[in-house]
């Protein structure tokens, strides 16, 4: 799904960091928090892939330890560097972190307990279903399905075949451990359709994570 947003990627990353900091203060350290859930609380919706990209950036900069789960779920725990990063911006009261602290409601939709975000940790019980965990991947599959249906260079038979392949990919991703041999062989014909190349490449990135 393409999502128009005025929020820059840099601001998005900063907002994730300040929310991680707050959650850690609220719920305690040594916990991993679900970045997808945090992103879902933002007023402005961002492209699904940004969560994965943000996790990679945050980890590369040593600001958090991230766990990338197949299907697009990213859990993160702030490092000392990450805490210092947020605290420095809080003290200087600048950037989007400063704006956020002045008026959190501008950036975050708070409902019920509000600051609760899904807590995850390696080996901890994961309450979400596999489907929910891999929601970004399933959204991409929906996008690919729409793309197949709209593609004019494919015959009805070719479309039917690809839609059956797509359904098999869905079934695989509903399993706790999908078979990568099966996924690779089914994704290859899809990647040959040029209009589907983008979402298929993004899907592969999520599966490989």
């Amino acid at each position, binding site marked *: 799904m393409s999502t128009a947003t005025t929020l820059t990627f840099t601001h998005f990353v900063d907002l994730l960091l300040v929310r991680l900091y707050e959650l850690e203060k609220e719920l305690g350290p040594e916990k991993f928090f679900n970045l997808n859930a945090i992103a879902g609380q933002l007023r402005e919706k961002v492209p699904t892939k940004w969560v994965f990209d943000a996790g990679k950036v945050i980890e590369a900069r040593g600001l958090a330890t991230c766990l990338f789960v197949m299907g697009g779920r990213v859990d993160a725990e702030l490092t000392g560097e990450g805490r210092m990063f947020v605290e420095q911006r809080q003290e200087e009261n600048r950037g989007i972190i400063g704006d956020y602290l002045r008026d959190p409601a501008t950036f975050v939709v708070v409902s019920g307990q509000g600051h609760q975000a899904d807590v995850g940790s390696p080996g901890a019980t994961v309450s979400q279903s596999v489907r929910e965990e891999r929601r970004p991947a399933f959204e991409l599959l929906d996008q690919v399905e729409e793309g197949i249906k709209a593609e004019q260079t494919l015959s009805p038979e070719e479309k039917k075949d690809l839609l059956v392949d797509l359904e098999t990919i869905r079934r695989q991703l509903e399993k706790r451990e*999908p078979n*990568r041999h099966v996924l*690779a062989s089914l994704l290859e014909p899809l*990647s040959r359709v040029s209009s589907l190349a983008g979402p298929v490449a993004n899907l592969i990135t999520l599966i*490989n994570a």
Partner: protein
Amino acid sequence: MSVLSFPYQILHGHPSPMPICDVILLGPRGRTSVRALVDSGAVYSVFPMKAAEDAGIILMGGQRMSLQYGGSTEPGMKVSVYLLLSGRRHRADVVFVERLEFPYGLLGRTGLFAQYNEVCFLERLKTPRVEFRL
């Protein structure tokens, strides 16, 4: 037994998952990530020259060599460098080439495989993986 384990990756346009891992090349200017195929048939690792440039590795003092690679013969410079594989440091000979034939480099045997008791390709698993076993 300590094991470095890398699940096979799916590549865009490839019908089979492949034993590809992210290797960090260490240099005076910093670290650069290189996607590389674990290739037990390759004597040396093969990386793009751009990676050496990004990491600040000088190739001038290296050994010029021709490399049979990807169906053609590529000129390259062999240099001994430090690599990080899953956080573990290795001294390995890498041949840097101007142009990679594939969208990934190669992780060859020299300087790497000999540091492990076994390098296993576990192909029949649902999530196939390559393991470097100490």
